[in-house]
């Protein structure tokens, strides 16, 4: 039993974590990275209050449980999607196991998918027991167990019905429309990165809104709040990284098509404008009452040029996720420096020019990391 479970974790769960590295990084930073010591209260007190608040108020508990259920649903959808691919057809053999064994096996997989939540559950139980909030702690624990049990059952059912046409050949409304290249990339984000994208938007639009709404002064300094906002912009790099991965594997053929560099660039420009639309709309909504027009333009200009630059940098070489994160950290350092010297316009112009230059230089010179022409032996 141990070996098939490890095989399933390696082939289904680890790719899930890999694909959602950006989400986990973002959530980790929000949960642990941005929490500072205030009045002697640090990260321990912060999380203690969170868990206590959740267990003490069912109105707070319900959305948390709903978020966990959504997360698990996303994980299960990832696995069912993978099971449809020819590369995973070897898992058909699992159908020869008794249903009970299959269920235990999938329960192990679901537990691995749900691992971050289960770890947090230990903390919740600790807080609940300490605070005497036994009923809500049991409800939370019971809900988490029920989710895992149901998810494992769903996977057993899915595998047994995998080769029924109505499951494997499901046609969605998106299959009936003609898609341009940027629309394909957007669809990919909508399919696999929507959680991360929505998280970024809630964070960056939330920061913008809270800062601007609380700003009553005529003269104010936007530099510090901008850096908080800009963190959200930089996390878009994770979406860009995954999109570029798709381009270099399943969309590699597009490089061989007669499309000019300018047209390709305009496609990317439109794509990133769409991805940044919530931030741009929030900026427009806060202007001019809470935010000066000039500041809104500065923030929008830097955000857009940063996203384009992050995209162009990915043409310099095939970065690993870790290397790419370092590049983004370097970019953030440069931004801090330019903000300190109030070089807003300079930053937008510099980033836009660098994005265009690197893209023009790098697009056809890019060497993929995998496939022929990369690791030829």
């Amino acid at each position, binding site marked *: 039993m141990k070996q098939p479970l490890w095989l399933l974790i390696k082939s289904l769960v680890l790719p899930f974590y890999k694909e959602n590295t950006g989400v986990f990084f973002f959530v980790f930073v929000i949960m642990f990275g941005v929490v500072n010591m205030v009045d002697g209260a640090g990260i321990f007190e912060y999380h203690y209050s969170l868990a206590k608040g959740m267990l003490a108020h069912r109105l707070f508990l319900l959305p948390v449980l709903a978020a966990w259920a959504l997360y698990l649903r996303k994980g299960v959808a990832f696995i069912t*999607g993978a099971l*449809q*691919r*020819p590369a995973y057809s070897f898992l058909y053999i699992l159908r020869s196991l008794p249903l009970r064994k299959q269920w235990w096996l999938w329960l192990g997989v679901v537990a691995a998918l749900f691992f971050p939540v289960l770890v947090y559950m230990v903390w919740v139980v600790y807080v609940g027991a300490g605070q005497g909030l036994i009923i809500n702690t049991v409800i939370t624990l019971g809900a988490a167990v029920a989710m895992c049990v149901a998810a494992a059952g769903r996977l057993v059912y899915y595998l047994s019905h995998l080769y029924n046409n109505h499951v*494997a*050949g*499901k*046609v969605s409304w*998106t*299959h009936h*429309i*003609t*898609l*341009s*290249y940027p629309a*394909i990339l957007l*669809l*990919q984000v909508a*399919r696999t990165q929507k959680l991360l994208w929505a998280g970024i938007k809630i964070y960056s639009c939330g920061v913008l809104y809270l800062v601007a709404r609380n700003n009553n002064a005529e003269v104010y300094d936007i530099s510090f709040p901008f850096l908080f906002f800009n963190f959200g912009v930089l996390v878009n790099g994770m979406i860009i990284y995954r999109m570029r991965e*798709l381009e270099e*594997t*399943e*969309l*590699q*053929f597009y*490089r*061989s*098509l*007669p*499309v*000019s*560099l300018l047209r390709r660039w305009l496609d990317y420009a439109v794509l990133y404008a769409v991805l940044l639309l919530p931030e741009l709309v929030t900026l427009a909504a806060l202007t001019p009452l809470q935010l000066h027009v000039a500041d809104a333009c500065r923030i929008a200009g830097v955000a857009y040029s940063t996203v384009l630059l992050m995209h162009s940098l990915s043409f310099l070489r095939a970065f690993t996720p870790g290397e790419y994160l370092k590049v983004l950290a370097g970019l953030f350092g440069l931004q801090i420096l330019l903000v300190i010297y109030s070089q807003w316009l300079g930053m937008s112009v510099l980033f836009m020019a660098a994005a265009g230059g690197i893209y023009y230089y790098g697009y*056809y*010179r*890019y*060497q*993929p990391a995998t*496939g*022929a*022409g*990369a*690791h*030829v*032996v």
Partner: protein
Amino acid sequence: MIQFRHVKKAYHTRTILDIPELQLHSGLYWIKGGNGSGKTTLLKMVAGIIPFEGDIFFQQTSLHGQPVPYRRQVSWAEAEPQYPSFLTGTQLLKLYLNVRRLPWSQAEPLLAALDMQGWIHLPVGTYSAGMTKKLSLVLALCSNTPVMVLDEPLITLDTTSVKVLCEWILRMQQQAGTLFLMSSHQQLDDSVALPVTVYEVYNSQLRLA
């Protein structure tokens, strides 16, 4: 005519391909070579997918100097095609046809010949390896470009499809003078005698076999 000028491809310090000068006129070319000899690398270079030193010309159009006009003349089908599983064959075909400004009717005869009309509208994620291969061949062949670069065009195809494909290639070559650059480990279908010129990649050189 395809012309290679001082073409070199190295990975780290190892030279994979070194073709100082070579001209290939209209015809059918079969590139042979052992695993990892650089066949696919060569074809990807001709298709403009990976970078290299030197230059490749079709007629007088340079791949590096005039990337878009060059790509208008060349079509590419890879050995083990991969496409986003959420797209349908129809969507991919429409994307190709739109980029090349061709009507849907251009692809219909080929879809019929390869018996693809029943499933082309389904998501690629539901295709078998053979179906995905057929799709990649249709995407390349429907564009009617004067150069077709087909990497391992016969693998995973059933025997009927191999015959149809060979007949199609022969007809395109005879009627339109298309230059086919193909690589394969397999033998061609005996019933369709393709007059191929065989080249071999050996020791980073491309030479007549």
